[in-house]
């Protein structure tokens, strides 16, 4: 291991430690405030940024949705808020333990863990919602508290990483060693990115195509890191994409199905979602959507299926989104609405199983340079 690399690792683990300390201090200060209120005989309360639609605004400079300035007071005196107040307190308490002991948890795990503390969430969506509350109050993503979504996205390619999670500290790994790819979970998201020979990151919407790309050695042929987003990219994946772009200076291109949902998967990676308007640092503004475009359907004479009512409605909804008011985003939406038909990535199989990697991908990679 080179001296330079060693230094980089040291700096990285120092940074991770500092981050952990910050989180713990912040949680403690929140807890201390509640403690004092109770001890003084007052009902504790705190303020939380409003996440209602009216408070979600698009920030052109940041190129993402952010929360406005309005906020709400949540008080334990108010009996209609008392339950969610207690749930949030428990979550902060639980997140504090996770962070302190460097343990990881998933959304589903949080839901089940609550039962051990007589905190009754009606279903997982209620507990998921409280997790978003914690993010909003602290302005930190849940991953900072060691809470991760279920793993469903994966990565493959020549990338060396080094773990920072307890028990694996300093252990390194090359992400092209296992042909099934590596799940993007807590340990990978928090790992240090050491080096890579790749020159581009290809994010692809579907697991099936991901496997095909690995089999066809797209990583080697096009010097790329391949990431399967598994549909709408989870936040851990978006975080990793951002780090690959920012830390390793790699361009990111996105390949999705040729429909309005695919177009939006690309948009969320690029500029975030309204659901996560309370968080920043989750976007890759320079990422490029390269296909499958609506215009590709005509150009490549792809087999199609008709759009459903909800597909069409989704098109009209997105036309109101400020991010869809110009460029290819606007143009492709219009073409989808004109065609009223959509195509999957697999549509290229009509012209041979490797058609997509042999013909389509090279053209798109070439095109991406000019976008």
């Amino acid at each position, binding site marked *: 291991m080179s001296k330079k690399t060693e230094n980089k690792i040291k700096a990285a683990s120092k940074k991770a430690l500092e981050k952990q300390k910050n989180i713990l201090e912040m949680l403690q200060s929140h807890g201390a405030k509640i403690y004092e209120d109770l001890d003084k005989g007052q009902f504790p309360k705190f303020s939380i940024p409003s996440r209602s639609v009216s408070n979600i605004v698009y920030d052109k400079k940041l190129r993402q949705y952010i929360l406005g300035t309005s906020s709400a007071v949540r008080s334990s005196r108010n009996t209609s808020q008392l*339950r969610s107040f207690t749930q949030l*307190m428990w979550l902060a308490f639980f997140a504090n333990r996770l962070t302190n002991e460097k343990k990881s948890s998933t959304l589903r795990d949080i839901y089940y863990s609550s039962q051990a503390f007589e905190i009754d969430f009606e279903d997982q969506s209620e507990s998921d919602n409280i997790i978003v509350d914690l993010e909003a109050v602290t302005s930190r993503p849940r991953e900072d508290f060691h809470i991760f979504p279920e793993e469903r996205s994966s990565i493959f390619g020549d990338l060396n990483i080094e773990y920072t999670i307890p028990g694996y500290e300093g252990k390194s790994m090359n992400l092209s060693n296992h042909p099934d790819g590596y799940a993007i979970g807590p340990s990978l998201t928090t790992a240090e990115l050491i080096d890579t020979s790749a020159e581009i990151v290809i994010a692809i919407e579907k697991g099936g195509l991901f496997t095909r790309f690995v089999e066809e050695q797209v990583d080697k042929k096009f010097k790329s890191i391949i990431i399967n987003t598994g549909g709408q990219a989870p936040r851990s994946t978006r975080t990793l994409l951002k780090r690959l772009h920012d830390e390793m200076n790699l361009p990111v291109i996105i390949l999705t199905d040729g429909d309005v949902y695919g177009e939006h998967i690309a948009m969320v990676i690029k500029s975030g979602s309204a659901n996560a308007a309370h968080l920043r640092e989750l976007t890759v503004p320079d990422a490029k959507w390269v296909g499958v475009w609506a215009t590709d359907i005509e150009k490549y004479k792809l087999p199609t299926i008709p759009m459903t009512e909800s597909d069409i409605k989704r098109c009209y909804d997105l036309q109101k989104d400020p991010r869809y008011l110009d460029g290819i985003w606007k143009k492709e939406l219009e073409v989808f609405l004109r065609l009223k038909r959509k195509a999957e990535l697999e549509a290229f199989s009509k012209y041979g199983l490797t058609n997509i990697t042999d013909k389509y991908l090279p053209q798109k990679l070439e095109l991406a340079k000019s976008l």
Partner: protein
Amino acid sequence: MSSIKEKFNQISPSEFFYRNRDLAGFSNPSRSLYTAVREFVENGLDACDAKGILPDIHLTIKAVDPEKSDPKQYILSVKDNGPGIESKHVPLAFGTVLYGSKFGLKQARGMFGLGATMAILYGQITTNKPVTVKSSTDGKLLHEYEMLLDIQKNKPVILKHKTKEVARQGLSVSIFLEGDYSKAGSKIRDYVYQTSLITPYASITFDDPKGEKFHYPRMINMMPKSPTIIKPHPYGTDVETIRRMVVESQFEIPTIDDAMIEKVRKDLGLSKKSLSFTAIMEKAKKRWKNLSRQVRVVIALMSFLKMDFEKLNKIRIEDIDVPNKKLFYWDFGDSTSKSIEMDSESQYYKQLTNTVQGETLTSFLSKKFQRVGPTTAVKFAEFAGFKPEKRVGTMTNQELAKFSDSLQKFEDFMGPDPSCLAPLGEEPLEKGMKKFFKPDFLTVIQRNASAYSGFPFVVEMGIAYGGEISTRGIKVYRFANRIPLLYDEGSDVVLKVINDIDWSRYKAKGDPPLVIVSHICSTRIPYKTAGKENVADRQEIEKELKLAIQFMARKLSVFMNKRGQVEAAKKRANLYAKYIPLIAQFCTELAGKKKEPNFQKILQEEKPIENEQKN
């Protein structure tokens, strides 16, 4: 009031009612059975009320042949513990139609006692069996009559009359009649149930034909105040009533028979002594003030006849011709008609004039009507265009019509006297409803008396909520003069008023377990239909009902608010007790403390609120 001697009058033959029995509620076996029950039960209750006796009513309906299917013959018996009816009046009271004692102006359940005879008549028509009446007025001797009605002659036919010794006073009537209990049963049971609600001072037992026994024990031991018989109010009269009153006010020339002469002697203190004519006149002058009108008239006649008692016994007065100042009489001794001149200057002449021509208008008004004093009477005479001293007996038909018309138009009469009404009273109503419904909340109100068209009325109401009331939605029990109104409630004024109220304003939302009892008392209830099941929406009655309900609804709303607050406070306290300790536990570890914060202060603070509202 018991001093008023009950007056028995024979009014009209039973033939008419035989032909028109539908009008009286005897149209079919089901309805007839129900009507008969009502008539007898109500008579029993009225009789007890009149004498201030706490009623014990025992109603029995038995099928003659239980195996037969309806309609079939039943035996209906109603027994009370009232004053009974004197033996000599029993045949007339139960054996003729339109023979009754309830003829004054006071509130009673039935009128004229007509219904009971109608039930007997119906029973006789459908079964050809006699009625059995047992009566004891002294609690020692019981008279038992078995009789039939002679419909054409409107006369009783007594089949049996026997006496036996008993230990209790009261009246029992038992008839055979064609009925349909499978149809009328629920209505009769409802009637008994609701009657016991509005008569909490009565004990009512009902043995039904299926062997079921319904017993409603006495809930309170106090009788409501008895109504008094009062004079009519001017607004409540018509030409015919006025004519009858005028006729009644003109005293007939008394028949001078042995009994009358005996009475005059007794009143003058001359029972044993025989005095000369002059001595008798002297004596009468001295005692004039204490003499009854009848006796005065006899003395006046004697003054012109110049006769002592012995001579008086031998003549008969034929006519008194006031304008011509002549007195005609028949002399038994000579068997001839004779006449004498009367001295118009004599004070006795005036006495006779009064008797024959009736009283002056002003004294007639102030004596015969309620709430009319001499001053008002004079004002009225002026208003109507009569001389105040006009003799009512001399009025022509046209003048009578004008008189009657003016009575309705004159606006200075005071409101009618409600002392003739018999509301149950707030306390008995409240106690009765409390024992009946066992509610969480109860309030009652008796409004002040008011009047419509000269008829006084009083509205009393009660609202009960929650507790053992299991019905959902507002259940209304309507009563008029202590009689339950069971059917045809849709068009009733009480329902109209209740439905017009926005109950959610009074915190009674959804289908509240709410019972409303409404009792309208009046000398004449304005029924909408001949069925007498629904009260018409007279503006004055509607207003009183509305005010009564609003008053009670406000109280209900206060109760509901309190209950809501207590419940909310309880719920709040429970939530705090559950969650605050958890918050304390989590923030303790989060803040890095060892000891939990003292959150008990908050929980303590919340508790007093709950207690305060409970009190």
